[in-house]
């Protein structure tokens, strides 16, 4: 699918329901974008391949079911992003590589072959991204797609959850090539703002990344890590977290510990899901989908 219009998008997204629409305003000179600049992509996050435990007794089939659901879309997305925690952590480097290999094989079944991945702390924090890079290459990169500049930031290869000076310099240089009105989408794992540091839901030097992004007038961040939807604004920058595909976590600070929410046999996969994101002009529309249709 290339150049999906909004009506088609809503139709595609119909069974999941349009739950969030993000209006980024925009100037008149860009208001009349052609449909050729409209597209949509899919975001999957926190698949935690290799997890075993009561919070998801169906862990072995959850990711394959999500792959099946994405493949069943009438029109395939331009690309698919995975915002980290592809695999569940292990102290054994051999098991880590086995899980990464299995994950790669499963997502290789996606019809859309343009995959944009990044690590989460479960993939990369114990070996500073060494195994991840063997399978998927650099954990930070940028690319352009139909008028939008995408930037993948790695805030997990440092186990302290920081982006680091070197990568921040790379970000500065990357942004320097962009016009201040460019449409920028940042993809990352942890929230760049201090969402709830008590549960380590933050990036140590996220403020420095946001400072670099501030002069850009059109910035939207899509991230994972917190296993639930969350929508927030820091100044004019929007931040949207995605659901997980393994287990949901509680709302920030809603209970003493950030323990996974219990699996409900009466409603399997409740709280899990993936999303479509439509980019049209300066709008991003998010449609949430469950793992399996009700």
């Amino acid at each position: 699918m290339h150049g999906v219009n909004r009506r088609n998008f809503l139709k595609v997204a119909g069974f999941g329901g349009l739950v969030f629409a993000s209006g980024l305003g925009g100037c008149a000179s860009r208001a009349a974008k052609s449909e050729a600049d409209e597209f949509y992509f899919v975001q999957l996050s926190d698949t935690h391949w290799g997890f075993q435990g009561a919070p998801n007794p169906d862990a072995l089939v959850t990711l394959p079911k999500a792959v099946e659901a994405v493949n069943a879309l009438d029109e395939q997305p331009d690309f698919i992003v995975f915002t980290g925690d592809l695999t569940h952590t292990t102290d054994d480097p051999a098991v880590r590589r086995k899980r990464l290999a299995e994950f790669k094989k499963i997502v290789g079944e996606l019809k859309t072959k343009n995959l944009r991945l990044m690590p989460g702390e479960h993939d990369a924090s114990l070996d500073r991204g060494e195994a991840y890079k063997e399978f998927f290459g650099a954990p930070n990169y940028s690319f352009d797609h139909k008028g939008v500049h995408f930037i993948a930031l790695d805030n997990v290869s440092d186990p302290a959850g920081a982006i680091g000076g070197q990568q921040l310099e790379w970000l500065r240089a990357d942004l320097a090539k962009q016009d201040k009105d460019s449409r920028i989408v940042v993809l990352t794992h942890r929230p760049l703002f201090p969402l709830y540091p008590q549960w380590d839901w933050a990036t140590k030097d996220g403020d420095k990344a946001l400072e670099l992004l501030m002069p850009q007038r059109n910035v939207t961040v899509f991230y994972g890590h917190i296993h639930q939807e969350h929508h927030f604004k820091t100044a004019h920058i929007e931040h949207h977290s995605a659901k997980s595909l393994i287990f949901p976590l509680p709302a920030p600070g809603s209970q003493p510990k950030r323990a996974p929410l219990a699996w409900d046999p009466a409603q399997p996969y409740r709280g899990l899901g993936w999303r479509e994101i439509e980019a049209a002009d300066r709008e991003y529309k998010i449609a949430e989908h469950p793992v399996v249709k009700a």
Partner: protein
Amino acid sequence: MRRRTLLLGALAAALNARAEPQVIRVEAVKFEFRPDRLELRAGVPVVLELTAREVAMGFSSPALGLHADLPEGKPVRIEFTPARPGEFEFVCDVFCGSGHEDMGGVIKVLA
């Protein structure tokens, strides 16, 4: 007599001010802090001496404004004076392994 009492009081206060703060030793091991519940008094200075023996870890209590990276095997000291009573969470904020996300505790500050 009254003057002597005042002088003694001032001396006691000075000695108290100079007294070394209590040192509380906390070990960070996979995947818990030992102890994981600390009781302190508001207004009384304290030193937390934190040691991660196995791998690098972190100690963070955002509500108390405390943070330290804990390199493997090297004790790290945090000196502070709790300002107000309450219960304040702390967590390990350096990803240290499969039980990292359960690693935390509470500092209870008494009035």
